[in-house]
């Protein structure tokens, strides 16, 4: 396992000191050491996207990213998306369009879509599908997720934050 050491992870603007082994994943550090459980564990294999977080603005899979790699980087999780008690326009669009059912994949979708809209505020449907294809959802059939992202992209719900 190797020696554990204390890492400082900057998550949503706050510094968390967490004790990690060299093989501790960022997902484990977030969920089990910082108690930020909004990021979900679906497969532990980088296959489902439920654990997606932003690292320096880029959407990454925290279950196949080591915690040590995240040191010195800026991590944004689902807990850092809504502004206080207020939903982001993207989150509001997901709620209004019924773009979630069980909700387990939703944080990952929000992170991936947040990255997408930050890069391209007005993506076409095909780009939305391509960019979110790494996030699996078993409940919704994706239709309403696409519609929610489109609504934000077309300005119906205001811009992404």
């Amino acid at each position, binding site marked *: 396992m190797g020696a554990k050491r204390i890492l400082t992870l900057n998550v949503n603007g706050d510094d968390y000191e967490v004790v990690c082994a060299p093989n501790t994943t960022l997902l484990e550090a977030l969920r089990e050491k910082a108690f930020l459980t909004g990021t979900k564990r679906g497969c532990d*294999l980088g296959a489902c996207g439920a654990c997606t977080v932003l690292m320096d603005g880029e959407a990454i899979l925290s279950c196949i990213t080591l915690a040590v790699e995240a040191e010195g980087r800026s991590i944004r999780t689902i807990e850092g998306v809504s502004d206080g008690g207020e939903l982001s326009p993207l989150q509001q669009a*997901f709620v*209004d369009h019924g773009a979630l059912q*069980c909700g387990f994949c939703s944080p990952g979708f929000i992170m991936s879509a947040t990255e997408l809209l930050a890069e391209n505020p007005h993506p076409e449907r095909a780009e939305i599908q391509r960019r979110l294809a790494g996030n699996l959802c078993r409940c919704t059939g994706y239709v309403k997720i696409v519609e929610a992202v489109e609504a934000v992209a077309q300005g119906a719900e205001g811009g992404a934050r």
Partner: protein
Amino acid sequence: MKVLNVVGQRVPMHDAAAKITGQAQYTDDLVLPGMLFGKLVRSTVAHGRIKSIDVSKAKALPGVKGVITGMDIPDRVYGIVPKAKDEHALAREKVRYIGDEVAAVVAIDQETAEEAARLITVEYEELPAVFDPLDAIKEGAPLVHENTPGNVSAQIHKEFGDLEAGFAASDYVFEDSYYTHAQNHAPMEPHAALASYDALNGDLTLWSGTQIPYFLKRNLSTTLVIPEQNIRVIKPKVGGGFGQKIDMFAKDFCACWFAKELGRPVKFLYDREEVFQSTRQRHPMYLTLKTGVSKEGKIIAQKITAHADGGAYNSTAPLMITLSCFFVMIPYKIENLVYEGYHVYTNKPVGGAMRGHGIPQPRFAIERQIDQIAKRIGVDASEMRLLNAIEAGEPHPAGFIINTCGFADSVREASKAIGWAEKRGKLPFGRGVGIACASFPSGVANMSHLASGCVVQLSSEGRVSVLSGAADIGQGAETVIAQIVAERVGVPMEDVHITAADTGLCPLDAGTFGSGVTVRAGNAALNAANDIRAQLFPVVAEALGCEVDEIEAANRLFWVRDDPDRSVGMRDILRQYQYIDRSLPIVGRGAWVPPADSATTLLTNNGNLSPNYSFMTQAAEVEVDLETGRVNVIKVLTAHDCGQPINPMLVEGQLEGSILGGIGYALYEDSTCIDGQQHNPSFLDYGFPTMMELPEMEGIHIDTDDPIGPFGAKEAGEGTQLAPAPAIVNAIADAIGVDFDRLPVTPDMILAALKKQREEAAGEAR
């Protein structure tokens, strides 16, 4: 559709904000002080006698707090169907599939628990194993359970009319065989359990990602020998179930056992491989259909023989095979009918309830055969379905009572919308359209333990608190129940707060299965809300100077129906209620059980299987890539009679999700098991539809108003999973002229069929 205030509206799920912000708590998100972590040791052989288990190294590992094998816990079996219980939390003498549980450990952290599990060595005497139900029923086949000769653990034989006379009276008789494969539910949330124990009171609490809290409570009591009144099961948010979480698992029993033995909270979490291998999957099934028809395409007689691959244990076996049987009697009228079904044990992962539960398999066979027969006798496949369509109010051979039925309309509407007349048989080679039909129960009647209860409390400040036993697994059951209560009490959604699926607080409920929640728990909520009205409305009538039956209520306001200016608000009424010295809160109670002649079992008796029935026709347009064999599903539309939707947005969500699940079932999802070993137990290898496979979708509402369902509602959760696969495979047949008789239809199969087609054409040309 009726116009109401809250019911029938596109209301977001009441917990949507919690889910979308990551605040919603699923079982694995819960942490208790002093919590220990568990890990299971699983069988590495498909069939074997346990000779010895060496746990000494695991016990000696620092940080390990407990190790148990099957011999350390009571010799009690569990199971969702009481008379089909056949599973031990941990195997005792024998293991029956690769993945069967043999030991469990708990430790101070997950790494230590996993290390300890690796240190346990199990010595097996390997036994001959059997992997196919048709082999398993042969004489001399290895017995998966010694007490089950022939490996048939559940069977059903139903006979209506005179089959032989029907075949004799038919112009044509066709016999065709089909095979459907194993599909995994693949809920996004892996299964988890967290237990804690109060040593003073002897109270055990289990948080579990379950669809059936009350069945789980009962099974915990009987297997761990703890009085039921000392057990509380709480369902946190559940990240999808689709039937897989209808069962209970080693994680639940072991978490509870260790919590009680050690006096510390214990959590078990399955990894994705365990979810694929050691929970449940859709039963593979062999089906043979012998069907007699008139020259016009009227079905005169049909015999269906089915062998379901049950895997190593029963799970829902008797219920599955019963549903499989009864739903070949609907949506077509077949007077002379025989169904013979067998649930067969094999040394493989266990079959269980999965969206559709035993019905998608015969639906695939029947809907494929109708298309094949239509082609053979030269009739239109859509017309043939209409010719055989069941209608409301007709006497039914098995005793179904069908009050409302939009089936024939669904065939017409779906055919029209897909462009049947212009496209069927007329599109360029490689492109085609197909339809398929289905019906589904809104929960099962005629069986015990199917009551739902509800308590609604109206507080002095107007807060409406609902206690319901219903288990929301992400489909929105809590929202639907809250809408029903809000509508009847006359308040907006934000006034209603629901607590559900906590057996320590909430009234009894059967759980989430059979697509029965909206009708059953919805009616219980309606009755409870009506009880509130019965207590409150006399005071309103007095205030308004009218009769009780003249009162309308909405948005915290009460008014006289024919004189809306005479109105009074909820706060005023609650104040008046207090002034006349009546006690607050007002508590309404309600319960509901599907009407049935007697509590019996449909395995042996006929009867009205369900309080009501949904109907649908689904149509698909596909394009087959002739180079790669890949199928692009261009469009899927559904003409849907689900009664009056309580929440159209949630109904659409159910429909859209089922279509993607149906595409996966038709074309690629396949839990491959070779010699008992699963070969693709991960999301990477299994592969279910992503956003890239999204077809164009359209839903057509066929309007019916059911007298039994709350506000006219019927089921909308499972029925739409039945027909997409046969509709797609029928469309493939239209596209390339190949009749596939097994699922999934893979690119390899398509390329091989196209090659054969070319060779045959070349042969004829020569």
